[in-house]
């Protein structure tokens, strides 16, 4: 017998959320959604969640199982029982307000999708037949187009947890779907927009969204694609791009990070306000004796590191 420990919330009845447990013997092959449906239809009709296709394509049934975002219809319930534990904890998606039980408010999620101008931009008159696109060009948008907008990545994004201004992994993956599309003619404008604060450079590369994505969209890899296009297009007049370039420069030069130089180069030598913002941090580091060595020494085998750069390019 498994225990489904479900986070309940209904502001019509009670202002605070609480957990409620339901016992149910998981039938062989049952998905988490099958189990929730059993609970709703036989034990408590007030249990509220979204669902529709039950085949991992509509993106309705995003929620958290044992602390991580997933699609309820895609997850075998038994797989959530680990190490002899008989309890499965079910909670609503994170980084969104909860409406009732497991149903969350997606408004901000969609607003951020809107922000990346999620449609093809190409003012040329289309040909009579299809626009040409090679299989290799299609491949560049193949993964991004599998996104089902389920919000799993958004829920578990570590940046969004502290910075609500961040576009988030789903919107950035959607942006890559157009930046990577050979038929889209707004690459530069898109990249400029995406390089602003809250955009692609605010991703901290934690990779959580790749772990949570139920499809091959894997947003962090799409964000990496965007960053590469940004550097290639020379859209580097921003903290994120400068940080990446300074990082590369430092490793290439000495095989290690010059932690005194990178913050300054990231801000930009002429960015007076940005540099002044760094001063208090620097002073605090000084007081705590955490300042990196002033004299930056290369690693012993720096020649080997430089050879890697020569062979693979930047």
């Amino acid at each position, binding site marked *: 017998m498994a225990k489904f420990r479900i986070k309940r919330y209904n502001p019509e009845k009670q202002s605070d959320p609480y957990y409620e447990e339901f016992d149910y013997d998981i039938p062989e092959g049952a998905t988490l959604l099958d189990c929730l449906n059993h609970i709703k239809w036989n034990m408590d009709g007030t249990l509220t969640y979204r669902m529709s*296709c039950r*085949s991992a394509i*509509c993106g309705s049934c995003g929620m958290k199982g044992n602390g991580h975002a997933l699609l309820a219809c895609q997850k075998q319930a038994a797989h959530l029982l680990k190490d002899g534990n008989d309890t499965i904890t079910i909670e609503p998606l994170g980084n969104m307000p909860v409406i009732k039980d497991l149903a969350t408010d997606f408004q901000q999620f969609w607003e951020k999708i809107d922000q990346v101008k999620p449609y093809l931009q190409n003012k040329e008159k289309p040909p009579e037949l*299809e626009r040409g696109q090679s299989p290799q060009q*299609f491949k560049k948008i193949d993964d991004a187009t599998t996104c089902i907008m389920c919000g799993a990545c958004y829920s578990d994004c570590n940046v969004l947890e502290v910075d609500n201004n961040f576009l988030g992994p789903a919107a950035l993956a959607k942006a890559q779907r157009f930046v990577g599309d050979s038929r889209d003619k707004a690459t530069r404008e898109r990249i400029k927009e995406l390089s602003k604060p809250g955009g692609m450079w605010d991703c901290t590369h934690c990779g959580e969204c790749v772990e949570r994505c139920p499809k091959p969209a894997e947003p962090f890899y799409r964000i990496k694609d965007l960053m590469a296009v940004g550097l290639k297009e020379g859209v580097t007049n921003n903290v994120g791009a400068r940080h990446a370039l300074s990082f590369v420069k430092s490793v290439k030069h000495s095989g290690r990070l010059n932690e005194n130089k990178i913050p300054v180069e990231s801000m930009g030598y002429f960015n007076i306000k940005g540099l002044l913002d760094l001063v208090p941090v620097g002073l605090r580091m000084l007081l705590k004796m955490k300042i990196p060595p002033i004299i930056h020494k290369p690693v012993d085998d720096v020649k080997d590191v430089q050879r890697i750069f020569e062979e693979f390019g930047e």
Partner: protein
Amino acid sequence: MIKHDVLIVGAGLAGQRAALEVCKELDVGLLTKVYPSRSHSGAAQGGIAASLGNSEEDSWEEHMFDTVKGGDYLSDQDAVEEYVKAAPRVIYELEHMGCAFSRTDDGKIAQRSFGGHSKPRACFSADRTGHAILHALHEQVLKNAKSIKIYSEWYMHQLVIEEGRCCGVLVSNIRTGEVEVIQAKAVVFATGGYGRVFQITTNAFAGTADGAIAAFRAGIPLEDPEFVQFHPSGLYRQGILFSEAARGEGGYLLNGKGDRFMEQYAPSRMELAPRDIVARAEQSEIDAGRGVNGEDYIFLDLRHLGEARIMERLPQIRQLGIDFIGVDCVKEPLPIQPSAHYSMGGIPTDKFGQVVADENGTPMKGFFAAGECACVSVHGANRLGTNSLLDATVFGERTGRSALEYAKNAECGELNESHQKARVLNQIEEIFQRDGSESYNDIRNEMKQVMMAKCGVFRDEENLKSCVASIRALKERYKKGKVTDKGQLFNTEVYEIIELGNMLEMAEIISTAALARKESRGGHYRTDFPKRDDQEFLKHTFVYPKDGELELKYKPVVITRYQPKERTY
């Protein structure tokens, strides 16, 4: 009261395509009980048909003939002709909008083979074509946000018909529970099908006949409801769809003895015969005890395609197998069975999407329908794979255009807001007041089981009579169901109850029409009348509501180019 020039209910392919047409000149409300991108069109996998001729020479005439023959000659051929002629143009338009299609080496839209099509004419995006098109349309809808107002998670209850014309709909905001009247000069239904009436189905939970029954309760007949398509490859017990593209790419069907049994049923087309024929072949094997291990399933075998081909063309299917039954189709065959998939019948329309109120073609002013909820009829008695995405796109556009032209020259009809709202409020209050002696879950399960067993792939008089009687008994029990959530906020239970009411009504309509059609044609197979009977039944069924009973009338089929012939593959 909310007002729009045109109000569209349903935001799948047909609804969104219609919205894009209307928004060129008028303001549109686009209402959906989910979110547009969560519509069930997105679950379509294999492709969308058009005679582009990108990999083999093709023509609209061949596409038309295949469609008419596939539909067992019940299609209205004037509509089919315009439909297949429009196909290449609408595909190019989708491509221009940005839809991601798989490509040939020379950069054209790739095309593959599909059941019942004599040429490779399925344009596709790997095995998620519906998803690709749905999102491409959604992108355009977002781009036109100024003139398209989206109502996500709103439920449509009823039509408002005043003095013989449609002037709005009654809806609920699911999140707040607020009941509203939306007044519109024209209403377009694009509400999808009703596969959820059956136990084993590929359909989403949302496929509950809401649109068809709202029309029916407003006095509009339903056309050809007995023709329900069973898809040959739904996952055993669950019905989750494994695209026909798996067979289009060369997959085999094997019975329990390991034989490619289609040899016995359709030797020239084998696994790529139309779906009605393949589904019947599978069910015959299962009924004869030749299922795998004597169970109710057979195998879909893709192993010989190799991992590279599967990953390029069928990656989603592979993942579905791994996630849902732990079977990797690269190494093992997939267990499948026939699963209710598509409704050929629906709300009768002319070839411009105008809903007709009777078998004589009298228009119901201000009311339009497109996509699976509508019956034009281009699919006749059996739809070919990849023709539904095409139907939704072509008729979505045409219907949007018709609604636009109508609304431009129409005024809003008069309606009494509080009186109209009361219709829904009373219905919900009545549900809350029921005595609670019955379980809706039991009623729903029994309905699904009885429809599958007695009104499924094979039917006969005795079973159908018993089916109709069972459904009527369930309708009585439904009036005594137990509700637990009486709140306003995001009350999903109350909508599930209303949906069940719609499905019970639909189940009775399907089985009653099936009982009356004493022949076998396309998706409707009567073991007691195994032959097609053109003398008696080369005609469309029209089921009317009449004093709480059902009344059946018929309408002749439009035949232009292709005279009915024996149908062999």
